């Protein structure tokens, strides 16, 4: 099938305009007037205990000692670092927080769970996923 010349010109013009207007950085520009509530200043960032569900072997219950009103993020990492394999955020409503983590899509292996607060403080524990 042949495409008419005027359609090719139209497509080329459209692509040209798109190419000139779409900036990969600006497309994610976040309004600088937007304020983000980072919550309370964290005073405690501590993993108290971790339990692995005996049945699923991939549901992790993490018990933490944190600061009410502060925000935290939990990363699942390979033992020697790199990008996180799973990320979970939360804002603490009690000092002792329990978070259930579903790592059913993560393959068996040895990992680190890292708890990070908004001040950049972090603590980690090793975890072995073994189905």
């Amino acid at each position, binding site marked *: 099938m042949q495409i008419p010349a005027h359609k090719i010109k139209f497509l080329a013009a459209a692509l040209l305009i798109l190419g000139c207007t779409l900036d*990969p*950085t600006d497309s*994610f*520009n*976040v309004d*600088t007037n*937007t304020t*983000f509530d*980072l919550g309370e200043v964290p005073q405690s960032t501590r*993993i*108290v*205990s*971790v339990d692995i569900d005996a049945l699923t072997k991939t549901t992790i219950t993490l*018990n933490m*000692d944190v600061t009410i009103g502060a*925000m*935290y*993020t*939990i*990363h699942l990492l390979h*033992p*020697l*670092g790199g*990008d*996180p394999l799973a*990320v*979970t*955020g*939360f*804002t603490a409503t*009690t000092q*002792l*927080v*329990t*978070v*259930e983590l579903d790592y059913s899509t993560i393959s068996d*292996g*040895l990992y680190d769970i890292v708890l*990070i607060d*908004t*001040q*950049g403080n*972090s*603590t*980690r*524990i*090793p975890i*072995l996923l*073994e189905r």
Partner: protein
Amino acid sequence: MKKLFLLLALLLPAQLSAQPEVYLETNNITANRGDTIEIWANFNNNNTQTRTIYFDFSYQRTAFSLVDVSFATAGADSSAIPTGTTTSLTNYNFPGYNWVQTTANTTTNGLTNYQNMQYAYTSGGPYTIRRLYGTVALPTNTNLGTGRFMKLKFEVQNTAHDFVYDSLYMNFAFANSNNAGWLATNNAVSTGYRSAFFTVTGGTADILVYGTLDLPSNVNIDLLQPRLKFFEKYNNVPDTLRHTETVGSNGIFSVTPTEVDADTDYRIYLSLGGASGDSIPSILNTAITVSDFTAAETEFSWQSLTTGAFVDTLFTKGVHYMAADVNDSRGFDPGDTGTLFAQVAGVETVEMTDTSQMILKSVFDTVSTAYWRVADSILDTQTGGPYGMDFHTDTTATDTLNLKYFIPGDVNLSYSSALAVNNPGSQAAPVLDNTFIDVNLNNLVVTSNSIEIPFEVNTGEQEISALQFEVLYDPSKLRFETMDLGVSSWVAFIDNQEGRVRFGAVDRAREFAMGGEFTPFSLKFVTINNPLDIVTQLHLSSNMDASSKSGHQIGITLNSNTIRLIGYNNYANSGS
């Protein structure tokens, strides 16, 4: 009920102050090539309910093969493992990685070292990290005892006769208990911190030439890659490369009769930076830093206006001048300081082939500031350019060569051989011993696609006149935009390559030295994708430098060499 359990869990660690111990049984092992080495990791339970021990070891994978890991026999006299115990082991290998020591991760507590772990990765690198996760299932009402826990069996590889063997290091080991989670664990019992020192013998080759090349203590051997090139000399025909000898990380080299001939004339050159010399710019960026420039500039500015003589305040030995003469004019002139600044700023690269300047140790240490031009002339004439070594091999006996080198432009010799003089305090004259400034870097929660990272400096009583750093970043996630200079009277420089930005500033006017707490630099990046989702890290390389007001090099203490950037959404996601 859940909260009650949590409260109990919180209180228990405080009540149980017992600290288990995990340590290597010996720190002194002698073996021959081809031997197997057995190393025991021992355990002292110390009234805990330990069920798991997590180990991190590093060693040369090119020198040692881990052939077996096994638990101590349950119930044996020497064993920490009681009768009726079942064991399981998870074993992970990370070739190319090596442990990076910091103050925070070299404590006696294995759990602390784990929390502060840092690694360096070299593709195809000679080291490996081995993680072992050993778990025990004990009979009811039983705990581990004191004694042997786990055995590592290594085989010593049959490497080259002059291979430099390193030891096994236990970077951390810590215990997990039934009732108190992961425990602070003492790793410094008996053998001291992280040690299992190997002495490997058994080299059988005859040695024709043996010697040392004096390497600086902070050398990055993977970057420097020092090699000695043995050219056979003929009359009236070009010299022929006969042998290239790699110098070990301890500076030792030895050459056998199969590599060079006895009773023959050779000219030996030092090559740095890989076979093709492709890492020479990287070596120069590491070796020539702001304090080299400030030292040269200061020495030059103190030159007598009437006689033209230098006062030799910072350059106390001839080799300082030889290193400062980067334009090879056999004089120390404004062209040298200008070229040095251009190199530091990344405007121009000091001209250098893959051959460096190598001198006999006895000459390197003794050339005076008055005699350096003559020495330079003689060395140049002898070997026709970059300094090398004319050498005649013996007929039978082993010759010994003790050598030193400098990299042109590295005037404070921070990446070259150190000077040895009678007064140890002035070993490296341009360096102010034990003087440090603090630099604080903080992690950030990212809420905008424009990210600003301040470098906060506290110099204490010290005034500084130059500062430089190098930051590594993931170019698929971040784009470097610009640097704000907090010391407007200084001259700034930025050298931005993909994934790496080297930057700094110098008080060229020598009138605006800074002291106390201030923020000399703020780096600005933009995110490539949605900033609210980003998770990435910036790493500071070891390529950093600072100079005092007087031009001396001073040290930098970082609170962290990693800056973690985490987008807001990673905190805001709902947790259960």
